[in-house]
């Protein structure tokens, strides 16, 4: 019996490095599956969405002088990807909207504009800026109350956002675009911006969505 036990012991001992090697190989393969891992425990549990995107000017203030003037733009967000370039620019569509003065803070010039990512926080479609209440009622299943104003509305699952109202979002604070109809769980994701030389300049984007 002793002999067999010794044999089992030796077999176990020799198989350990083999098992270890297999686990190492598998872990490398599995990490390769997930391209945005930057390393370390933090990288495993909370991947960054952006690898560092440049600051981009998207609209001139002269284009947004009247209330409800808006401009749609594309912001290039760079993220780590599994490709030969290692980095890939995702096109993030966005909206700048000039909000009427009654909804803004007179002390803060930035509050005249809201800048949102056009990616619906529900399931990722690109939403529209809908000005006509008839289109909202017919195409998006929402009858806006009087006095009516434009809304953001998503064609996929008919979520409608009110740019004049705000909702509290965890860790992000009060965000414009309260959901007034449809299944969306939160207001659109935002972009941080600054006003420089009469231009609206995007400095960063809120992560979490699929671009």
């Amino acid at each position, binding site marked *: 019996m002793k002999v067999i036990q010794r044999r089992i012991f030796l077999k176990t001992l020799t198989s350990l490095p083999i098992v270890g090697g297999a686990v190492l190989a598998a872990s490398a393969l599995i990490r390769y*599956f997930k391209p*945005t891992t930057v390393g370390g425990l933090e990288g495993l549990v909370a991947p960054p969405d952006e690898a560092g995107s440049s600051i981009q000017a998207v609209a001139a203030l002269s284009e947004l002088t009247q209330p409800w003037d808006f401009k749609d733009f594309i912001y290039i967000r760079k993220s780590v990807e599994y490709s030969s370039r290692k980095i890939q620019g995702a096109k993030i*569509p966005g909206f700048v909207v000039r909000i009427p003065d009654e909804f803004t803070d007179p002390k803060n010039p930035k509050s005249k504009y809201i800048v949102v990512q056009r990616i619906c926080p529900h399931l990722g479609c*690109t939403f529209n800026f809908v000005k006509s209440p008839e289109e909202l009622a017919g195409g998006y299943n929402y009858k806006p109350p009087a006095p009516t104003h434009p809304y953001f509305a998503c064609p996929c699952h008919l979520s409608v956002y009110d740019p004049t109202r705000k909702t509290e979002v965890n860790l992000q604070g009060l965000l414009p675009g309260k959901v007034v109809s449809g299944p*969306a769980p939160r207001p659109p994701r935002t972009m941080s911006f600054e006003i420089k030389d009469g231009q609206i300049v995007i400095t960063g984007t809120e992560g979490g969505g699929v*671009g």
Partner: protein
Amino acid sequence: MVDAIRYLFLGLIHAPATFLAWFQERWTKMDLFDESHVEESKTNPWFSLGGMWYWVWMLVIISGVVLMIYYIPVTDQAYHSIERIQQNWRWGPVAIGSMVRGLHKYGADAFIILATMRVYRMWFTGEYKQGNEFSFIIALLLLIIGMYSGLTGYLLIWNQRALWATKVMATFPTYLDQNPAWLPGGSLINWTNQGKTTAQILLGGTSIGPATVTRFYAFHFMLSFIPLIFFELRVYARGFKRMNINHWAKLAVFAVVLAIAIMIPAAQGSPANPEVTPNPILSDWYFLAMYHFLKLQDPYLATVLTVAIPFLVLTSMFLDRRPERAWGQRQIFNWIGIGGLIYFIAFSFLILNGIADLHRDAPLWYFSMGAFLLTGYIQDWAYVMKRDGKRFYETFHIFFVAFILVAMSANTLYHYFGEIREWNVLGKAQMPGVLAHLQQANPLATPDMAYDWLEKNRPNLNLWLTKGAGPDKPPGMQLWVVHVIAWLGIIASGTVIGLGRWGRRKSAEAAALAAKAKPKPQGA
């Protein structure tokens, strides 16, 4: 007590062996392509579904391999390579490329139709009983694999429908990181970020790009070839015939798919454009019902339910413990099947015609779901009374009814809870004053913040109470009140009746035991 512990211990000790025996019985009986229904299939075409299904699968694989030669899996060339397949490759008047692509597409549709029909056949005839659970699991699993293969396959076309369907599908898992805090371990799961990780693994990054196309190309093969390898290993080990259909049946199936492929060339749509979502935008036909369902539900709940539906089907299969297999003797399970079919057809119809009133429809559908279950329950109740010769109250399962009613009320609750505080007349009257007050400190204060303030600082003004709600209150409001009362009442009466019944049974058991013990001689 001691006996109970002893039996529990013995049960635990024997659990692996019991499970192994259970598993082995089902493994032996597992049926892949209806190979255990050879006799039935000669007279009943429903039992030829397995063979036809395998045949269609082979057609799809062969046409897919041909398409592989010409398809270019790169985002900026994929759409045009398909265009080239559709147009350029001709044999006289017949566009061979279009035909092969049609065979692949309509063959895949046929695969899903046949797999669905087979799942329904097994469900309605109770084929999963008497140790055949694995056959049903395999049939259902392959239907799901077929659907996912379709999803990964149509991104490869790189058209608008594909792009947005993929985006929706890839955003799905991110909701798995938003488990509510009251769920045990919910915040731990959220912390691991596994939902977002899943999305990134699927897409090969944070957005749909070249890496996504490569991955989906790989998944598309894997989903077909890996099950095929395992199936062939089993066929090799058991040596059964794969297709229990004759050559004429094979030819007929092939001819039907080919005729459709020639008459209706597979659609290509417009090239993918991540900047514009067309309105309306639809998915492939087998996801339409799911897509409509997504409109009506909170996304977290919708994600969990979408992942859970197959598991719910499997769970309800294991709940069907009775040996009866005849149609009239298992009405609850019939109605689950019929209900599923009705929702599939009705939701697809509604979304195709653009009919959706999000504020009215959702509770309606939930109620009808409960109504199906209740109908099934009442029919089953009648059957059990007749079978066991019992009075109606002796076979009444109050908890089942309570469960259905709770489920029916839950959705109503969900749909009106969010807006309830705005329907409170007293709260609504006080809100503007509070808002004006708040705006002195913060010019950007909103009505919602005013409601929050009221809720926090006026505890006797119960904002969730809608007593005296205005004339424009939503029609479901009274229903909501009725449901809360019914819910509480049914649970209370269920507890009382259930406990009474349990007590009577226990005392009857004790009396029987005492009567049995009496004749025994003392000290034996």
